[in-house]
């Protein structure tokens, strides 16, 4: 019995080793742009990770179908499951960074923890990181964080936009004095990011700010919401991810906290966050980086070229969901950066360094957005060497029980408030890491 099992094990091991060796030999064709895709389709955060990954994949596939890639360079993507775990994410990055004729063009870490880890590695590998709407807030400063691109907004921007909306609702910042604002946050770097900015705002405008942590994965929030019931803050900001969001909304309903006083960050405002709460989610609000729905030009192409050929990454009826569209926008920005890089370096696969040039000179105008079928979906943005965020605008959306609808126009974050904080934090980082910041005025 035992020897038989042993022999089977040995055979299995040899077989596996042989397969690995055989697989290592394959090579990609030369005119292909390789894009590693760090995703999570399993584990506690899968309900949020899946639609994002699908949107991204579908957009790249659509480009391949419609235009044969970008200027004739086909896009090849390979997914790697991180499970939202930092060490697996780093392993995925190391596994995929050298693939393809030019290596990884650009990487989306898709987790704040992985972003922090890759921030240390990217400069050495010369691969840019797109962290659209997440990542470390001070990485907006391109002179220190040369390879991070928190496009469209950081958590500091998000916090400022949400507080701006709160002020609008109350009738101006002056009216915030004496109000109470609580932040319910995921107890990780992700959730802690907005705290310094909110503290700063609280100091300026005289509202009382308190922060309530929720431990990963966020299924235990009773104590948190009992405290909220006790303190009755005027507004609750929600900085959650995955199951934490839906649990927070349910617990809010359970303690009768008005949902229309709850505003989530853009990672706390998707369908999987509100549907489990049923009617209890009505009135809940969240910031939105982009529009929702499948009525845009890009969706028509995706339906026609991807789903009608049964090659969609997900289910047809999930196209147009919040996180699906976020994946689309992310894919769009990445491909535009490659396109921009090609305009300078020629229509061939780009290296990470070239894509970075494309990112730093990215200028997505309203006309370009319209042309690409994203009109109404995103706000134009322009990146520079110093400013790696581009645009910091979002709208506030509200859940009415069956769909999201906008309750505000685009709100812009107050750059005069954020930028000095970014510079100070980036300077501290540079000192700790002994980095000499680039002089952006000398780069064109």
């Amino acid at each position, binding site marked *: 019995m035992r020897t038989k099992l042993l022999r089977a094990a040995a055979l299995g091991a040899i077989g596996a080793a042989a397969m690995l060796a055989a697989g290592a030999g394959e090579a990609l064709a030369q005119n292909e742009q390789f894009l590693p895709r760090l995703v999570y389709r399993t584990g*506690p955060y*899968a309900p949020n990770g899946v639609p994002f990954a699908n949107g991204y994949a579908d957009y790249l596939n659509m480009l391949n179908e419609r235009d044969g890639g970008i200027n004739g360079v086909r896009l090849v993507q390979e997914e790697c499951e991180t499970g939202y775990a930092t060490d697996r994410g780093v392993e995925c990055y190391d596994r995929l960074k050298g693939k393809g004729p030019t290596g990884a063009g650009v990487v989306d870490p898709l987790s704040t923890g992985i972003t922090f880890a890759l921030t240390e590695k990217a400069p050495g590998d010369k691969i840019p990181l797109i962290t659209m709407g997440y990542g470390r807030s001070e990485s907006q400063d391109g002179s220190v964080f040369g390879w991070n691109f928190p496009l469209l907004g950081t958590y500091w921007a998000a916090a400022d936009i949400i507080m701006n909306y709160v002020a609008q609702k109350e009738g101006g910042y002056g009216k915030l004095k004496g109000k109470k604002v609580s932040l319910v946050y995921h107890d990780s770097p992700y959730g802690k990011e907005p705290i310094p900015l909110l503290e700063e705002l609280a100091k300026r405008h005289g509202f009382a700010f308190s922060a309530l*942590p929720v431990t990963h994965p966020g299924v*235990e929030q009773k104590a948190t919401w*009992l405290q909220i019931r006790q303190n009755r803050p005027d507004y609750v900001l929600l900085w959650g991810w*995955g199951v934490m969001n*839906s649990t927070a909304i*349910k617990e809010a309903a359970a303690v009768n906290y008005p949902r229309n006083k709850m505003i989530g960050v853009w990672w706390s405002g998707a369908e999987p966050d509100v549907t489990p709460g049923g009617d209890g989610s009505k009135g809940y609000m969240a910031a939105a980086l982009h529009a929702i729905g499948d009525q845009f030009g890009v969706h028509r192409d995706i339906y026609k070229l991807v789903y009608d050929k049964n090659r969609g990454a997900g289910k047809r009826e999930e196209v147009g969901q919040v996180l699906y569209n976020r994946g689309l926008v992310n894919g769009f920005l990445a491909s535009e950066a490659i396109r921009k890089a090609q305009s300078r370096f020629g229509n061939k696969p780009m290296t990470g360094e070239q894509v970075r040039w494309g990112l730093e000179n990215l200028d997505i105008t309203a006309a370009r957005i319209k042309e690409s079928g994203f009109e109404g979906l995103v706000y134009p943005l322009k990146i520079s060497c110093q400013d790696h965020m581009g645009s910091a605008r979002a709208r506030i959306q509200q859940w009415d029980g069956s769909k999201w609808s906008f309750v505000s126009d685009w709100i812009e974050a107050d750059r005069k408030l954020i930028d000095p904080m970014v510079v100070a934090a980036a300077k501290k980082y540079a000192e700790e890491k002994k980095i000499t910041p680039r002089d952006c005025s000398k780069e064109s």
Partner: protein
Amino acid sequence: MGFFIEVLFGGFLAGVLYALVALGFVLIFKASGVFNFAQGAMVLFAALSLVRLMEWMPIPIALLVSVGIMIVFALVVERLVLRPLVNQEGIILFMATIGVSYFVDGFGQTIWGSEIYTLDLGLPKEPVIILESVFEGGVLVNKFDLVAAVIAGILVTVLAVFFQKTRIGRALRAVADDHQAAQSVGIPLRDIWVIVWSTSGIVALVAGIVWGSALGVQFSISLVALKALPVLILGGFTSVPGAIIGGLIIGAGEKLAEVFIGPSFGGGIENWFAYMLALLFLLVRPQGLFGERIIERV
């Protein structure tokens, strides 16, 4: 004062949910000495089976089929894991159940999917405010928690009757007391294992229903198993009433600590506080709440 009672109450009700998961651990440990780490994965698997089956068939049939699935699961575990590992040390069996839990996590998500599924059995959700005349603002309780408590109560009663009054129950207790003696009077050990694992699977299903209705059925509910561990050290690994009382104490203790002490430490203390509470208790009373035979002490 009203708020204190509210927190205490909320804590008790959270404790009931912990107790449900702890109960599954206790059943298996009592009868087979296995510290079944796969209990959390079983909760997830049972809940996923139920919620996906409900899309195909009426609820009562889905429930029955889910129970059937958990029994098949017990049979498979007994045949493929427990039988070959009979007479191994506790830690080896513990490790084996970790292997099982990996397998079940992957298997469950493969056949049932890894999205978030809403489990709606029509349990009430709206909060009610009671004792408004006694305290200012009243005391808020959640009907759902009350229902969960009732379910847990029924389950414990059924288990108690099953253990005390039926023939199988007597055999189970005999096995728990002494494996060899039980075997020598003709109690088939393997059947007993299948029965406890099935029972524990059904307890997992009930826990899955309660947690799943509260949180939605998705991967995270397999992590609630960790919440049951301090309950186990407090209540003892082998005591059914210990699991219930321990659950209540841990639930109330951690919520009270989080709400009243937590803010001065920046919050988030409930996770370790539950363990500290259990640990302090153990230092005073190493056999746990209801542990009769204390062997595992120095």
